């Protein structure tokens, strides 16, 4: 199998899906040259009608994606950085998410939104947020947070084929992460978690870029006989509750690792579910390892202190196992 990095996996998934369906098209700021490379070269294959640089006008072009989807096409809409969604929040939360329901099921909304999220080294507060937590409480959206190239390809292809608005979150720090990625029609269904490492002492639910960090910690702790099961939900909506709960049923302990914030974050959402539905399994409180509740700072030592690192993940797992 060919080795692809995270960005190449995105590029391949989009190319395959655009080749597959002529009503699929790509729009966003600088998607032609593509700063991060995810859409590089697609203009040559699909031309200027289907690969469109937009003005810097997020509400306008995200809203246009909504209209284009309702009118029968299948937009892939890139919002460079996740926090730029704030400039188009109405279009996502009040329009894309709600119009199908409000129209009594008449509207199809096959939009795939793509964005780069997370701390990537000195990008500072307005370019380092995770943002997906703020979409969690908006019924009608699907949220995808791939942790590696293979999942990225399979999940992104499923997202593009989905008839609902799906937001795919690409971590800015994972670009060069390489792994074997199946060629051709490789689909990962939305709503299936992935057990990245089996274990029996504690369940570590890790999201996005936190998966690789957590696997390193699990590796280390294994040497001491602490067996960590690392679960990647892969999609936050729909959520594979069953996979998470049955792991907790086995381990009786859970730690959530998320780069989002503590208050109101995705970790709180998952912890609440485990604490309610897994109450009888739990021998220890569900710990959360998250970003501190501060805007993500610019200076490297501050940024490092703000977001979860292996030391904090390890400490939380040890504390949970120790109880």
């Amino acid at each position, binding site marked *: 199998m060919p080795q692809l990095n995270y960005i190449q996996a995105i590029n391949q998934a989009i190319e395959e899906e655009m080749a597959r369906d002529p009503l699929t098209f790509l729009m966003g700021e600088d998607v032609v040259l593509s700063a991060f490379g995810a859409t590089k070269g697609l203009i040559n294959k699909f031309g200027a009608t289907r690969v469109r640089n937009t003005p810097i006008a997020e509400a306008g*072009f*995200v*809203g246009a*994606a909504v*209209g284009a989807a309702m*009118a029968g096409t299948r937009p892939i809409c890139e919002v460079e950085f996740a926090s730029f969604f704030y400039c188009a929040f109405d279009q996502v939360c*009040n*329009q894309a998410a709600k119009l*199908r329901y409000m129209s009594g099921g008449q509207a199809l*909304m096959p939009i795939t939104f793509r964005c780069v999220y997370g701390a990537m080294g000195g990008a500072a507060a307005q370019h380092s947020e995770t943002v997906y937590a703020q979409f969690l409480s908006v019924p009608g959206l699907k949220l995808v947070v791939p942790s590696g190239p293979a999942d990225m390809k399979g999940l992104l292809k499923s997202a593009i084929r989905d008839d609902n608005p799906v937001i795919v979150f690409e971590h800015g720090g994972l670009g060069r992460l390489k792994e074997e990625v199946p060629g051709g029609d490789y689909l990962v269904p939305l709503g299936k978690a992935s057990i990245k490492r089996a274990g029996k002492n504690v369940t570590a639910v890790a999201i996005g870029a936190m998966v690789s960090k957590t696997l390193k910690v699990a590796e280390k702790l294994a040497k001491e006989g602490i067996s960590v099961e690392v679960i990647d939900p892969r999609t936050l909506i729909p959520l594979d509750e069953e996979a998470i709960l049955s792991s907790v049923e086995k381990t009786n302990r859970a730690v959530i690792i998320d780069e989002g914030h503590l208050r109101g974050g995705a970790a709180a959402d998952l912890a609440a579910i485990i604490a309610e539905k897994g109450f009888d399994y739990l021998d220890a409180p569900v710990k959360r390892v998250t970003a501190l509740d501060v805007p993500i700072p610019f200076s490297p030592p501050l940024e490092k202190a703000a977001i979860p690192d292996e030391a904090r993940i390890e400490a939380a797992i040890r504390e949970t196992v120790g109880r």
Partner: protein
Amino acid sequence: MDIGKDLLLQMYRSMQRIRQFESRVRDLAMANEVPGFVHVSIGEEASAVGICAALRKTDRITSTHRGHGHLLAKGGGLKPMMAEIFGKRTGYCKGKGGSMHIVDFSLGILGANGIVGAGLPIATGSALAAVIAGRDDVTACFFGDGASNEGTFHESLNLAAVWKLPVVFVCENNGFGEFTPMATVTSVKDIAVRAQAYDIPGHIVDGNDVLEVYRYASEAVARARSGQGPTLLECKTYRWEGHVVGEQAFLGEGAYRETAEIEAWKKRCPILRFEKFVLEGGKITHGELEKIVTETQADLEEAVAFARSSALPDPSEVTDDVFA
């Protein structure tokens, strides 16, 4: 441009449907027979009808919170519309949308919208879809003078202009956004002027003259269909009723506009003007108009009866249609 008799009769029927529908909905809302916020467009019938008369069935429209007229003009059915406003299962949206969110995809009605300015990007995207799909369908986008101050107005007109999209932007300038006079929150006297900021045609149109609206609309639609891009039409009009039905209860009468102003505009009633025009021109007889009025009354009665007798949604339906 000569307008045939059939079209004239159709326009008249369409204006009658709107006037009678809106008047009835207002009364039903005052009587608390329908829930939620209800915004009616009495006095503004000509712009909805003049624009939609220039569209074909596969063309699309986006509408606003004050959308009943637009929807009816594009062919919306009295029964499913009334039923939706009543919140009944037989409504266009199975009772999930209500007055501000009526949609009929089969007629190219992408929907009323509760968010001011939200329709502009959606209409722009609908026009983009036509280009992507290689079809020559046009999208007409209705919005108000107040919406023209929203950022989505700017972003949408710029996007539609640079991509030469087949969309017609129709600003229905009724002089107010809620209870605020347009002049106190808008930096230009004529919204049409703003077309210059996008290098597209902009026209001031008498929004109470359905035939003038139709002529400008036909030109703009032809322009859009032939790939020459968007046009901004400003239809000057006026709403006879309050912003929202029942506002007098909390604002009192005449809180933000003079009765004299309302009366002056009523003299410019789009329906009376049309009647005067066709009767004086001998194009249409009084009897033909009468027939349309009474037929429409009958249809409306049927629609109200249908809505009243329809069942409310079952609570179990609350979770349907969140996802496809």
